[in-house]
């Protein structure tokens, strides 16, 4: 444990999923309520239970109880509910989520002290989605999301140094400081970034999936959007195309129940998102439980790679901060509600409880780990603060490909800038 923690740039070791949990899955048995799944007759219950014991996900010998069942839409079978894990996986998840949480809290402080400017949409509370998803995917799969992208960036292998640099608009940022908080990218790990305009991840993700299918790659594209975005027209266009052409795209809905300040039931006639279309199957998942997300994503990936077309995975999650740093998050939510989530459903707490229950570590050790992570994250932030700003020519670079020689007209036609 110690050696992994000491790194120069703190990143999530999301390679975990590639070695461990990736093997399991198979045809898992449907469990749990939800009015839209087809219930089996009692006669086959016994057969079902036999099948249950044979189908499991995850290697390791620690059994995890999934707190909330999956809800299914247009699916015979759902994700595996026998989820196993190991000490290594648990500790890694704990670490990853703690790094994520710490980063968001550090970003909060930096924004308040005006080191970060512009807009800053924080991910704390939703860590289980990033970590759980990455445990099921590989870096060959493509991911893109909306503007609440810090967590997904770290999950995709981005370092906190790159992230802080980008947030502060420094040259060492992942987008050379030109994008800012909403635009974190990591090309080599197929993270197609954060997007500022709500709903764009739908059509774009569908396009990525088309390319993957065309290239016959056994991979999926994951298009992430939120409950607020779910009413954008372009999503329906994209989803229809994906279903028509059986594209391997997982539409992951991060349902944190509020589109900026508007509660989901005030924006949508039907505030569920996994069962909106009769021709695309869906799963509703407890998004505060990393293992549920992992199991669901494994199932979804298998579904897509088998050529069955797109699938929607709705993750029921929550964000502790407001929509962005300009929003206190308390005018449309009660304090009790936020505190309630922190107490009852915090994703990190959940992992911590499993670790402590299984006696894999002690409370003091975890606390030490927390402190260490905090220190390291703050070191990375301090390093990023010292980094230089992008050079002036970056204002004009990369507008076009091969914009060398491009003449940009500034204010007054006489003021022309020719790129080197």
């Amino acid at each position, binding site marked *: 444990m110690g050696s992994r923690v000491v790194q120069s740039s703190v990143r999530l070791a999301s390679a975990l999923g590639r070695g461990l949990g990736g093997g399991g899955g198979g045809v898992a048995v449907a469990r749990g309520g939800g009015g839209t799944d087809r219930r089996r007759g009692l006669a086959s219950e016994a057969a079902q239970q036999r099948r249950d014991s044979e189908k499991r996900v995850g290697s390791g010998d620690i059994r995890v109880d999934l707190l909330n069942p999956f809800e299914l839409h247009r699916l015979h079978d759902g994700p595996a509910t026998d989820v196993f894990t190991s000490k290594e996986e648990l500790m890694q998840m704990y670490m990853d989520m703690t790094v994520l949480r710490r980063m968001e809290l550090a970003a909060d402080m930096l924004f308040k002290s005006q080191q970060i400017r*512009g807009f800053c949409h924080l991910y704390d509370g939703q860590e289980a989605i990033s970590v759980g998803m990455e445990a099921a995917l590989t870096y060959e799969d493509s991911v893109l999301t909306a503007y609440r992208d810090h967590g997904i960036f770290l999950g995709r292998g981005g370092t906190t140094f790159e992230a802080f640099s980008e947030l502060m608009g420094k040259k060492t940022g992942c987008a050379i400081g030109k994008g800012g908080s909403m*635009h974190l990218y990591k090309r080599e790990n197929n993270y197609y970034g954060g997007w500022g305009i709500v709903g764009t991840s739908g059509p774009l993700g569908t396009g990525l999936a088309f390319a993957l299918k065309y290239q016959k790659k056994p991979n999926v594209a994951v298009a992430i959007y939120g409950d607020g975005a779910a009413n954008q027209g372009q999503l329906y266009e994209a989803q229809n195309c994906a279903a028509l052409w059986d594209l391997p795209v997982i539409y992951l809905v991060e349902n944190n129940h509020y589109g900026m*300040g*508007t509660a989901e039931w005030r924006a949508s006639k039907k505030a569920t998102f996994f069962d909106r279309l009769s021709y695309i199957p869906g799963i509703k998942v407890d998004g505060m439980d990393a293992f549920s997300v992992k199991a669901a994503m494994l199932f979804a990936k298998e579904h897509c790679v088998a050529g069955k077309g797109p699938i929607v995975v709705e993750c029921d999650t929550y964000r502790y901060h407001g929509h*962005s740093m*300009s929003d206190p998050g308390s005018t449309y939510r009660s304090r009790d509600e936020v505190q309630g989530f922190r107490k009852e459903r915090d994703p990190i707490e959940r992992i911590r409880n499993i670790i402590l229950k299984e006696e894999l570590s002690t409370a003091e050790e975890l606390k030490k780990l927390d402190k260490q992570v905090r220190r390291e994250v703050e070191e990375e932030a301090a390093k990023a603060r010292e980094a230089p700003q992008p050079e*002036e020519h970056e*204002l004009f670079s990369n507008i076009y490909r091969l914009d060398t020689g491009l003449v940009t007209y500034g*204010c*007054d036609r006489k003021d022309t800038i020719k790129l080197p």
Partner: protein
Amino acid sequence: MRISITRALSILQRCARDCPQQQHSSPSVGNSTLSGAVRLLSSQALATSKEPEAGNVPKKSLNLFSAINQALHIALETDPRSYIFGEDVNFGGVFRCTTNLADTFGKHRVFNTPLCEQGIVGFAIGLAAMDNRAIAEIQFADYIYPAFDQIVNEAAKFRYRSGNQFNCGGLTIRAPYGAVGHGGHYHSQSPESFFCHVPGIKVVIPRSPAQAKGLLLSSIRDPNPVVFFEPKWLYRQSVEDVPEGDYMLPLSKAEVMREGTDITLVGWGAQLSVMEQACIDASKEGISCELIDLRTLIPWDRETVEASVNKTGRLLVSHEAPVTGGFGAEISASIVERCFLRLEAPVARVCGYDTPFPLVFEPFYMPTKNKILDAIKTSVSY
């Protein structure tokens, strides 16, 4: 009538736009405190407006969002078939322009829509087609593009293609536009020139609270669809005495804010306060500048600008949007056609660079006072 600048200038904020190192105040969404070093307490509007009527009209010192709020209130009060809708307008909107309207007029007249711009505008066009006044809000002008098809293909052409049987004249789309100091790519755009290319709609941009109230009321009551861009930087920073009560300012009528003899400057919205600073600096060097606020971009007041250029012989246009294809290009081409022999120097355009609106580079990108001053001097000594 000579307009004299009688009010103090909101120096700090405007100067901050010229000095990249200085911290900017950030008008936060829904936040009552202004963070940052610059705190504008009772700062006055830089770009002052001509009094609609002289005399004893009672006035109140208001900022831009309050003036717009008043205009919307009056619009709803005077016409029972007017409605305001958009994302988050019910609680007052992210810039507080619709505060208290839902409480006063009810949630059936002031209501939230889901997050769907194309839907919002399409819905507004339908509402307007049945002789209602549909006042739609697009939360940021940067998000107006999903609605672009509806505006260009439906709203602008409805009257024309139905042979005047139908129209959506009651449509007004309001959207905050322009730089705000830290908005980056998607909270700072100035998309006005896209809409200026569409016959059938009007594009109106106010520069200050008193102007905004009168122009907004005119826009709402104008029997044509209007896209009304509000300079978001000025929502809090621009404060001015606004006449109480109902008044309208004419559309398609430019206003000469400052008279001069050496060069004509044309602009709109927040950029005017920067240009005004440049005019003041230029006058210290003996250059007399005439400053015109276009107010309505289409159909624009060619006559006023032409008359001014015929007087001065020089023209400078300035806007935040990128220079290529910006509305300054239309003004320049039109004036050259009309005043070719009178012009003493090429028409100068001091605008944003041809790049996406940048994040950290915003102070470099912006058409600042010094850039304008430079162009004034070049033009005058051509």
